[in-house]
């Protein structure tokens, strides 16, 4: 009988674990619970600052007495970089934690899955970072809003500058997944519109995180382009730059237009190897002089020490600020319909100034810093940058209506 006895033991302990794991925690009735799902383990560089930003905003708001008389409470969940897991965490947050508001998503496919979940379950959802255009357009829906600027906005912020160069022969390099491919196709389309004689002489799409930089650089330079559009980031970008410098592809003669490279997450690891002649989007937190941002910076560093900010920091902070504004606008009601109504057209404050959620596609008008890269004190920084508000980077309402299904 030993076999069955032990089988029973395993079974009972398994069920006990389910029971313990699934039991309902005590609930504080007077708080507004924000359930946040993100790829904490997979993207620690971004999510570390992101979480800190969220906590800072929550502490500030709760110190003032909360929103509509209720304090904010944040519950975060790791999605293990997997959409199915993200959905389960959402269910967990809704059924067990009884959260009032769902937010999160770093990866595009997870953002997309959560967007659809929101639609199916009729739950308000604030996608904070995932950049895919689909989230507000192709699969956009009544219940989903997105904070960070989309891939399209990133590309469109650079196109005007790119056209000014009047270079004919362009090379493109981007990671082989939706972010890269849609950035590249948006870039090609917008460039063709504004500069019809443009030619795309080389296109390389290495697998994400597995670039073979030497071969890629050589293939690009063999095509003799006059300018390059880049959507690589992270480890791929570091390899691309080092190899490009060594092989003389990058430098004075090669203007590069590169999205998100100026975000500290991706800029810092490059140290002093920043090549010349790059125009990037990013987040120059060290030199933004607006009072709102100065105050944010001071408070952040007061709370977490003199550490560098990340792009995640301001996104996380602004996420909570947006929710604060939304809940205030709905008069403290947190049912999905009230929140949706409140968020459509909602204005809220961020360290970068006033931002709003567009009624037409629920995209926030998150603006972008566009500038050049330089090395100061052995570190890469953005210089000569300007801030472009998000509303200027989006297509016309007519086009948006074509892209987005009616609710």
């Amino acid at each position, binding site marked *: *009988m*030993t*076999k*069955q006895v*032990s*089988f029973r*033991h*395993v*079974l009972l302990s398994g*069920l006990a*674990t389910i*029971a313990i*794991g*699934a039991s*309902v925690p005590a609930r504080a009735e007077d708080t507004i619970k924000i359930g946040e799902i993100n790829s*904490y*383990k997979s993207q620690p*560089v971004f999510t570390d600052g992101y979480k800190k930003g969220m906590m800072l905003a929550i502490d500030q708001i709760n110190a003032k007495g909360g929103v509509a008389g209720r304090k904010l409470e944040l519950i975060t*969940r790791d999605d293990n*970089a997997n*959409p*199915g897991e993200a*959905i*389960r965490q959402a*269910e*967990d947050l809704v*059924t067990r934690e009884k959260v009032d508001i769902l937010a999160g998503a770093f990866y595009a*496919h*997870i953002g*997309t*899955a959560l967007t*659809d979940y929101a639609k*199916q379950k009729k739950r308000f959802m604030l996608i904070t970072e995932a950049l895919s255009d*689909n989230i507000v357009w192709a699969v956009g829906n009544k219940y989903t809003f997105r904070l960070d600027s989309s891939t399209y906005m990133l590309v469109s912020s650079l196109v005007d500058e790119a056209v000014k160069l009047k270079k004919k022969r362009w090379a493109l390099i981007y990671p082989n*997944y*939706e972010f890269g*491919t849609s950035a590249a196709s948006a870039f090609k389309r917008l460039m063709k519109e504004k500069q019809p004689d443009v030619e795309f002489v080389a*296109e*390389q*799409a*290495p697998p994400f*995180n*597995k670039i*073979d930089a*030497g*071969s*890629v650089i*050589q*293939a690009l*330079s*063999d095509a003799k382009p006059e300018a390059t559009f880049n959507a690589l980031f992270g*480890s791929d970008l*570091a*390899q691309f730059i080092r*190899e490009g410098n*060594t*092989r003389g592809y990058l430098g004075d003669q090669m203007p590069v237009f590169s999205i998100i490279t100026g975000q500290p997450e991706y800029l810092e*690891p490059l*140290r002093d*190897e920043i090549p010349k002649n790059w125009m990037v989007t990013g987040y120059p937190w060290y030199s933004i002089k607006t009072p709102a941002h100065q105050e944010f910076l001071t408070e952040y560093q007061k709370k977490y020490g003199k550490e560098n900010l990340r792009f995640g920091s301001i996104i996380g902070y602004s996420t909570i600020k947006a929710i604060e504004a939304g809940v205030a606008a709905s008069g403290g009601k947190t049912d999905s319909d009230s929140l949706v109504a409140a968020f459509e057209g909602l204005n809220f404050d961020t360290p970068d100034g006033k931002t709003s959620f567009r009624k037409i596609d629920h995209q926030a008008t998150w603006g972008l810093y566009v500038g050049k890269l330089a090395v100061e004190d052995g570190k890469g920084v953005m210089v000569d940058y300007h801030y472009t508000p998000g509303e200027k980077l989006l297509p016309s309402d007519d086009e948006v209506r074509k892209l987005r299904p009616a609710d």
Partner: protein
Amino acid sequence: MDLSALLAQLLNGLAGASSLFLVATGLSLIFGVTRIVNFAHGSFFMLGMYVSYSLIERIGVGPWRAVGFWGALVLAALAVGLLGALVEILLLRRIYKAPELFQLLATFALVLVFNDAALWIWGPEDLLGRRAPGLEGAIQLFGRAYPSYNLFLIVIGPAIFGLLWMLLTKTRWGVMVRAATHDREMLGALGVNQAWLFTGVFALGCMLAGLGGAVQLPRQPASLTVDISTIGDAFVVVVVGGMGSIPGAFLASLLIAEVKAICIGIGTVHLAGIEISFSKLTLVVEFLIMAVVLVIRPWGLLGRLQATSRNSAPVEAPLKPGSNWFRMTVIGVFLLMAMLPMLDQSLPYAAVLGQDILVAALFAVSLHFMMGPGGMHSFGHSAYYGLGSYGAAILVKLAFMPMPLAMLVAPLVAGLGALLFGWFCVRLSGVYLAMLTLAFSQIVWSVVFQWDAVTGGSNGMVGIWPEDWLSGTRYYYLTLVLVGLSVYALRRFVFAPFGYAMRAGRDSSLRAEAIGIDVKLVQWLAFTIAGVFGGLAGTLYIFSKGSVSPDVISVSKSVDGLVMVLLGGIQSLTGPVIGAAVFGVLQDWVMRATDYWRALFGGIILFLVLAFPEGLAGISRQIETLWQLYRPAVGVVRREKLT
């Protein structure tokens, strides 16, 4: 691409091949001798990068920086080798006698632990190493700038290859290592302390991985993702070259690196008006090469049919039908599961988790069906899970099929895939078969990942929810019933003549053929059945989540399935169910318990591995053995002595 461009690309490939060779050859060596599929090999590569980074930042600066830099590379390799020795002594040595592939579970746990350890020590950011002193610049070759550091890489690969070859063929230690590959027990009886031999081999393999990582640092930043991406490449190289063959690993790393370089060199071409991007092909090219090589040469380029190693696991006990107690337990569990949705007030999350565990259990049971009784290890079972889920998604979204019909048809789509891939796979055996399944799953993955028009590309497809009359709790019950029926059916198959024929082919295919069993045909059918039920799991999954992305076909999905099967115990039919349940509950719990949940999860698995080397379902047998071991000798009935 003109000739000079081609030559330059070939040179690029040569440099890439070196690092690949270093990491792959260590893996091959370890497998050859210890038969351990060292899943943590990529982690040792990653640690090689991190350790050499730290060392170079300390001793690779100042006037002696050249000495410091090169010294740091060597020291880093040695340090990683030392860590490998510790792992072998503290962990692997204890589980050599476990059933096949069990060590994979242990090394999988190590991957999790090492990754979190690296996060804790070095932080989340990528660390870009310094350039090699004296080799910072480039030389002119074929009218192009070619990094001088690449020349060093081109030299070091063959140099290490030569040294290893000498070590294995010209030294006594090498002779011992090769002997241990075949029969370590005999070697022990000849006076060789094989434990230290194994430690030495494992440490050497890890050291090579560490060196591979260290020499890569001037080209590639140390990051927390290289462990997984490296292990995949290394496995492919080892298998393409032939497991255990060091010249094979060398040849294969050259082949793969060169083909990749040429694909990149070709870039985008227009053929008959169709744009073909060879650059995008690099996503999957190594797996295409592996599939082709294995179909043509079933043991890799330079591999040979593996002599059956005597270093093998205990024999499985004969099948016994479940006792009444067992049946009652099963019914009890089923009823308990049926009650979960009724707890929506007290335990609202139980049904959510239960749903996922049910799907995981079916996935694991279908995998176990081919791995356990079928004896066909699969590293690519996610292919059928993915075909089942994408099949359903496409049938619903693009063919506008009603959901219930799609649920019926989608598993058959997966079955068709299994029928096709299985035809090739069953011609192979052992790790080669497993790697071909992996190749096929990666090929399916890359098609799904890039076919934006149909599959939605990397973002996947959304809006695939059950019809209203089947949604919510009803869907849970549908899942419960379908999973219950499927598991029951698979169990019946195992107890039926077909299941016996599967096990017969596994135990001795020679003997099975000699009594008229068409082993390949039996395996092919088993493979397909496993594919259909794996597909059903995928179908059930997708309607519970509403969306699908290429993750469902990823390697890690296959690995999850493997972990569940091994954790539960591959030699037991209840093993995969227990494994899936424990895996699901554990992961759900640890992910919430700490930020370093990977390390905790890995640690728990390591504990289970050491405590229950036959899997959780093997606990009973262990208790039995313990009982007999400590039972006082007087209790043993002695036979009458004849006088």
